[in-house]
């Protein structure tokens, strides 16, 4: 049944091609997008059904054609326990994005162009997770850049142009370095086939070359993941992107980087990974702490969620750095959990921004639970899931990553990783802190009946100017005070709570978050054998 994976790529691509026909205009494009992505999601589900779970460590449903013999490039696709969840997640999030889009057309208009762009994006994202040839992986890795650039640059917020340019230049720089690393592997190993390279476990590549290649590949992937200090493109891109852009950026694009670590960097360059793992771990925990502290300082809801991604991806990278089955499983679990939860958070942030006209925490004021009980509850749920409450999906990735750091792979310095574990533990506390502070500001407190118009207040100084001297700049009080000051503005009408279309888009994410929270084994059983295979620990490789 190897046509399945081809169809996964061909359906969105054909959908995008069909959209160029002049028949599509206005709302038809939105529905067409839903239909195409639903079909894609259906195919992904079929893949998940026919997948042989007894042998999750083996590549399945492979397609292997020669494409460009001159470059050794083969059109080689396949899924195993590592890629399957990501493929399904990608198809799901894309579908939900189209559902969201149909409910609320984008600000920039031009629905057809946006649907086209998102479908091309979907091809690139799914292709990245399916590719089993280093160059093919790179090609799909690059396919997402141009569509995402346009999503941000055309349908984004006020500073969209700068954010889009920053995004594409930054990630292309990463990609160029990644390409060099892949070519080094190729020059040394003489093949681009990931399955074969994984089976070799680095034999045939000298240790020094492995270190250089891991460095290049790692930097390339770390830009995308993103790892501190290469994350600076992310807050701008996430903040300026439209809701669907943010969801796909956080939910899928970041995963392409971390997936690369699991698929390429660690299995193909084990000695390089062992040599550089302490650095990876150190940067990961710096990212955890940095992301949390940055979140505490944010005043914009979307920006705060963006920075929280830096922290969460830090846990994922820490899991990889341990080079143990527990750690890598944790990283892969964290990947999926972050995709679900942060996707939901960005949907919610988008919904809130639509209603209030701003995502500025001060302007939002308090009392959301009273004004918009459903959205307020969902926001509370997503934040609590994100901060890692046991019983929800966010918990397992972080807990297992820390557990992995408690007992890192042989050859890695245990005291060092114990320090990482401790710092990461502090990070979880800080994560809880900023989410709870945000919730206390937004969902609790006195509700404001007016929604001020005008540009968001950018600093505490501006708030002070509005309030006059002597007033305390305390979150809730500030919100209400601003409302009083700006009372002359016409009051906005009652805000509508969650719509049915939004519920359709959001509920699957809520359900999966709970499912994986109470039954993590569902996912860990899938990734486990594959992780054994990539770490060369026998089992599953057969």
């Amino acid at each position, binding site marked *: 049944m190897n046509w399945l994976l081809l169809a996964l790529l061909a359906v969105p691509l054909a959908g995008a091609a069909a959209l160029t026909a002049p028949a599509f205009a206005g709302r038809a494009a939105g529905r067409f997008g839903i239909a195409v992505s639903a079909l894609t999601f259906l195919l992904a589900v079929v893949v998940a059904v026919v997948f042989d779970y007894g042998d999750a460590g083996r590549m399945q449903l492979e397609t292997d054609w020669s*494409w*460009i*013999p*001159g*470059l050794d490039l083969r059109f080689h696709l396949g899924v195993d326990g590592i890629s399957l969840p990501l493929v399904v997640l990608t198809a799901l999030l894309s579908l939900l994005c189209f559902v969201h889009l149909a409910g609320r057309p984008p600000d920039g208009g031009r629905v057809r162009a946006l649907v086209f762009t998102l479908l*091309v994006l979907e091809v*690139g994202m799914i292709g990245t997770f399916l590719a089993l040839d280093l*160059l093919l992986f790179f*090609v799909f890795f*690059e*396919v997402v*850049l*141009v569509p995402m*650039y*346009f999503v941000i*640059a*055309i349908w984004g917020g006020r500073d969209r*142009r700068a954010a*889009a*340019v920053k995004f*594409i*230049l930054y990630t*292309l*720089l990463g990609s*160029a*370095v990644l*390409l*060099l690393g892949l*070519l*080094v592997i*190729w*020059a040394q190993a003489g093949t681009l086939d990931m399955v074969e390279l994984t089976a070799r476990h680095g034999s045939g590549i000298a240790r020094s070359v492995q270190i250089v290649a891991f460095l290049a590949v790692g930097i390339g992937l770390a830009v995308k993941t993103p790892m501190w200090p290469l994350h600076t493109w992310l807050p701008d891109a996430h903040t300026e992107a439209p809701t669907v852009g943010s969801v796909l950026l956080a939910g899928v694009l970041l995963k392409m980087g971390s997936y690369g670590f699991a698929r390429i960097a660690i299995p193909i360059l084990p000695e390089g990974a062992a040599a550089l793992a302490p650095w990876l771990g150190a940067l990961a925990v710096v990212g955890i702490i940095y992301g949390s502290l940055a979140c505490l300082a944010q005043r914009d809801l979307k920006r705060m969620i963006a920075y929280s991604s830096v922290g969460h991806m830090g846990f994922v990278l820490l899991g990889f750095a341990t080079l143990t089955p527990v750690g890598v499983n944790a990283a892969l679990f964290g990947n999926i959990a972050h995709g679900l939860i942060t996707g939901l958070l960005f949907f919610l942030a988008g919904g809130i921004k639509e209603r209030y006209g701003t995502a500025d925490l001060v302007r939002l004021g308090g009392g959301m639970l009273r004004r918009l009980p459903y959205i307020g509850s969902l926001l509370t749920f997503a934040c609590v899931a994100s901060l890692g409450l046991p019983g929800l999906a966010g918990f397992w990735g972080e807990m297992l990553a820390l557990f992995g750091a408690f007992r890192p792979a042989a050859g890695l310095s245990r005291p060092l990783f114990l320090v990482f574990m401790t710092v990461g533990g502090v990070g979880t506390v800080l994560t809880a802190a900023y989410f709870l502070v945000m919730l206390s500001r937004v969902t609790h407190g006195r509700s404001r009946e007016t929604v001020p118009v005008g540009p968001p207040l950018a600093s505490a100084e501006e708030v002070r100017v509005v309030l006059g001297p002597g007033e305390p700049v305390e979150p809730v009080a500030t919100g209400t005070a601003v409302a009083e000051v700006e009372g002359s503005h016409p009051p906005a009408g009652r805000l509508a709570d969650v719509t049915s279309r939004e519920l359709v888009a959001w509920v699957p994410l809520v359900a999966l978050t709970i499912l994986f929270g109470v039954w993590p084994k569902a996912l860990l059983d899938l990734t486990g054998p594959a992780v054994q295979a990539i770490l060369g620990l026998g089992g599953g490789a057969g």
Partner: protein
Amino acid sequence: MIQSIDYTAIAVPLILALTAGLVLVLDVFLPARPGGGRLLGVVALGGVAAAIAVLVAQAVQGGERRTFCVPPSLGGGSCSFVLDRFTLVFTALVLAAGVVVVLLSMAEPASGRIPVGEWYFLLLATLTGAVLLAASRDLVMLVVSLELVSLPVFALTALRRYDGRASEAALKLFLVSVVSTAIMLFGVSLLYGVTGSVYLDRIAAFYASGQGGPIGVAPGVTTVAILLVLAGFGFKVAAVPFHFWAADVYQGAPIPVAALLSVISKAAGFAGLVLVLTIALANQAAVWAPVVAVIAALTMTAGNVLAMRQRQAVRLLAWSSVAQSGYILAPLAAFAAVPRDAAGASVAYLVFYAAMNLVAFGVVMLVSRVRERGDLDDYQGLAFHSPVAALSLAFSLVCLAGLPPGLAGLFAKVVVFRAIVDGGLGWLAVVMAANTVVGLYYYIAWTARLFTPLSTGASRPRSGPVAVAVGLAVAVTLVFSVAPQVVLSAVG
């Protein structure tokens, strides 16, 4: 002594030269009436098409043809004109680009300020030179055919009457070219003096035999000769430090001539460079490879940095083509380690580059018919009033940047990167990686303009021949994107 000439081998340049003469004669004898220019264009196009047909026949036949050889009585073996795979690839490139340039020209002389007969004559003469150059295997013929490429281009540049900018561009090009020819001739004469032969294979044999110097000064002289030859070709391909003429000349020249300069003239320069370096001086790679590496790094950097500041479409393309020259040069620097891949990568990149660049020039030509200034701002909102032109331009720019969906450009860069990495030139690979990012900045900025809404309505540019030219170039680029193997197996 009577030489036997293999006329099938030289059929392609012969057809082009005869067509050039025919065009000139027709121009004199045809009655002057409106539409006559179009007829001459069709004749020129027919000539190029006939040459392509012959070329296809030669390619299908396969094998290697040689003519103008040294007779056996004089030692034999060496030939001045060789039709091998390298020649075929370059001839195909030149002729395909020739079709596009002729089609672009059919829109240009219609403005009435250009004498049509002379225009096509000069154009065909340039093509003849470029085709001859790729087949040349001796230094004298290389220089002569390189001049045959260059001289008509000055005239083409200046042919637009009463245009100060065009005259300035022609003068600049003329001075630069004459100086470069003089420098190269000096280098060539030194090579001849040291080795005692003008034939590339004999020069190679001389160095391969380990005759470092029958004369005491030979090693130093060889080095000087190599540097002078490099400098001469450096002018032709607009490599740093001989790049400064590019933007002014491209801007001043009519757009078809700018396209010709950036593709055909450049391809000719590279063909000569590759021939001299990889055949005659293969054994001296230790001398020239590091120089080429440094020149390549400087060229791509300078071209990209200068392109970032441009507000004019043609000037931007001029600097971008300088940067692309750097990418084409780069693999040659790895020649010592991977001789076959290095030359192949250079030629492959050149072929990819030619296709994508011609698309860009075609659309620029199309837009220039509506808006004379050619500022980048003129392209704002192009996607809304002429979507096909905008998509073509966007595709070619993304190709030049080397990003999907412009897979042709991506694979071209991968080929070059591979040669460099295989050759162990890590630093050059890093420089090129950084340059790729710098290049993306201006390509994507231009692409974004195409899709930025514009409030004022704009008339839709139309031109039959230009549309055909763009269509051809886009089709070829698409084929290269989906099946780059076509190029890779041709040059491999």
